[in-house]
């Protein structure tokens, strides 16, 4: 079980560094999502250790997944919008 916990922390650490280091916004978005998966792994591995599996983290993770997907959707839409404006080349005051 501790293997998953360690992996979770590694994923969080790695995606944190990638979020800071990598320039391209799409990679940054992937890093944020991966850190999310790392956190969920930590939560669910932590919940699994007890005799009775604790289902509160499961609910948190479910909410986390939905929030992650909506944030990513908006991020990607924003990148497309930025591309459109760059192509159109207008909007420079």
């Amino acid at each position, binding site marked *: 079980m*501790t*293997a*998953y916990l*360690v*992996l979770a*922390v*590694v*994923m969080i*650490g*790695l*995606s944190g*560094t*990638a979020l800071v*280091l*990598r*320039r*391209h916004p*799409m*990679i940054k978005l*992937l*890093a944020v*999502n*991966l850190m999310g*998966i*790392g956190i*969920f*792994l930590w939560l*669910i*591995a*932590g*919940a*699994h*250790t*007890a*005799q*009775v599996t*604790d*289902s*509160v983290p*499961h*609910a*948190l993770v*479910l*909410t986390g*997944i*939905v*929030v*992650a*997907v*909506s*944030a*990513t*959707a*908006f991020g*990607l*839409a*924003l*990148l*497309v*919008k930025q591309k459109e404006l760059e192509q159109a080349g207008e909007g420079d005051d």
Partner: protein
Amino acid sequence: MTLVFIDYGLAVMLAVLTLTTLFSAQIDRAIMSFVGAGLVASLIWARLSAPDIAIAEAAIGAGVTGALLLATWHRLDKPEAPIEPASLLVGITVTVVILVAAALLVMTMTTTSGLGALVQDKLPLSDVGNPVTGVLLNFRSFDTLMEIGVLLVTLVAVKSLNLNIAPAAAAPGPVLDSLVRVAVPLAVVFGGYVLWAGADTPGGAFQAGAIWSGAGLLLYLSGNLPRLPLLHSFWPTIGLVTFTTAALVTYALTGVVLQYALWPAGLWIVVIEVFAALSIAATLFLLVVPDTLEGK
């Protein structure tokens, strides 16, 4: 005994996929490995006895997000993400450091038995069999309400950008047609089952919503999506409206927000779940293809 190997196997696969996602120059490879990581993660959730999360991760984490990423990647006409060798070096050293730190941190953490026991003995009061749904829609129902709020915020935000994306050219090849004819009805029925069974067995509004949105996407891509009236106004918001009215009504009745009264809690939860699933399906569909059938 063999199970241990599966755990370690999955852990290693997830680690490798994470590395390839974060530190690869081609963005399409990054997206592919991210979707792979999502699927491996859902397998790990199943291994860690969290079936609801496994379904949700597969349907939303890997499914919808993967579709979004690929669609955007095309719309941004296949950008590249050059990595300087320096950041690769930094990446590797950081991995080693974090590995050691993680081990240390996990060693020294205090552990508790968690709320599992408390949830078990309070579950009958919540009038729902599946503990996750109990937590989601009764114990911590306000979280779920505001989470559907987050979905609405995203929808409003994406629509406010009013992107002009050319509708996907429907290529009704034989493979797609047969897939649609078989998969869509199956998905709709399976979604309905997951929604209904969610009360007592793994499943629930979010998973059902995700599956239905997948079915919708298939119909849209194959070009025979029926004209759905009010797709842009009524359906995406009905979930939040129902939940908020439920909150206000329960508050009026009992003086405490979201404390179910008058009818049994199970009935409240089912009604909320059905509408929530519908609006999640509509919202996720619109997030992938924001301006389809713009007709209000």
